[in-house]
């Protein structure tokens, strides 16, 4: 077992073809089913150990599948302050060997991984409105980012646009609503493609249409910063929409 508390300094770490990164192990302490095909896995480190990471980063699970080791990245949905407990949140992907392997795991089993990785981070919001855009399980890295943003002074407006197919797929909804009640500078905007009240379902472009209307077509403020996480082509569509709409390239992260 590697010492997870003595994380790397300097920030950059050496690469080597013959000396791969150290892998860590943690035990599955709890599994929570958000929906039939979306689960959170809570990974507990051994006593005295924790993983230092920045909100938005991910770990790479090393999964023994069919005689080889699959590398599967999963964003960390918990906050660095939670210490020795790490949460990842994922969908069961049809024909996806990695997610199928994970969905077959039970409490008490161990998982190996490397990390933390990734440069999609938000340690400190710039002095402007921060707009977080998530779709489905893309909320995972956004969650610790928003927690961090809401706990940081000085305060600037923070908004979460969160799209999902239906109500049950809006993960951590109670948490977002609690934040909105406690923090008047935080606005939670859920966007459902198939509302339960019988209204005509909006198409998959709902998020793109909403962002175009609110932040490009009907507004001239270009000082906002955007943090986008989702699945598939929608992410690059949003990136292109915002950059072509006049926002600075580095103000649109994804």
């Amino acid at each position, binding site marked *: 077992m590697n010492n997870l508390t003595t994380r790397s300094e300097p920030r*950059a770490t050496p690469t*080597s073809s013959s000396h791969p990164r150290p892998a860590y192990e943690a035990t599955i302490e709890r599994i929570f089913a958000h929906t039939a095909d979306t689960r959170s896995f809570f990974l507990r480190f051994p006593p005295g150990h924790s993983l230092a*990471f920045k909100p938005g980063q991910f770990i790479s699970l090393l999964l023994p599948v069919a005689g080889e080791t699959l*590398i599967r990245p999963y964003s960390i949905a918990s906050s660095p302050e939670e210490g020795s407990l790490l949460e990842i949140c994922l969908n069961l992907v049809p024909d996806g060997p990695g997610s199928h392997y994970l969905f077959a795991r039970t409490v008490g089993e161990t998982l190996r991984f490397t990390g933390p*990785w*990734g440069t999609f981070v938000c340690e400190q919001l710039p002095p402007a409105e921060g707009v977080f855009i998530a779709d489905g399980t893309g909320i995972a890295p956004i969650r610790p980012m928003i927690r961090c943003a809401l706990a940081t002074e000085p305060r600037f407006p923070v908004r979460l646009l969160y799209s999902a197919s239906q109500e049950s797929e809006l993960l951590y909804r109670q948490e977002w609503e609690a934040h909105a009640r406690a923090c008047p500078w935080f606005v939670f905007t859920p966007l459902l493609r198939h509302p339960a009240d019988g209204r005509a379902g909006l198409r998959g472009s709902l998020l793109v249409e909403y962002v175009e209307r609110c932040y490009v077509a009907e507004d001239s403020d270009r000082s906002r910063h955007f943090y986008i996480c989702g699945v598939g082509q929608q992410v690059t569509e949003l*990136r292109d929409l915002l950059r072509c709409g006049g926002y600075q390239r580095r103000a649109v992260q994804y």
Partner: protein
Amino acid sequence: MAKLRVLYETGEPERVIEFDPAQAPFQHDGQPGSILDVMLGHGVELEHACGGNCACTTCHVIVKRGMEHLSENSETEDDLLDKAPGLTPTSRLGCQAVIASDDGEEIVVLVPRYTINQQV
């Protein structure tokens, strides 16, 4: 056949891979026929923390020769490289740079000493 020569800033011995681009993919990570695909498929390791999905910069390589034989950068690749340490005008992500040449001309890449993704 194409030829990929891999140099290491750490001083490790270089590796030379001869391969037929038409046989790609050589394994399952990264774009088929990419530098990462060619290296892994021929037993030459290259870090790829995101599984070769263009979500990190751990497979950052610096192309020393043969840039014209590689696929064009996407905006997503450029955005990621923007955050890579030691960025150079010929930096590429190994998982995205697909080798198009099969005329035998050698492509030379350098694996840099550092990556930034394991950062805290």
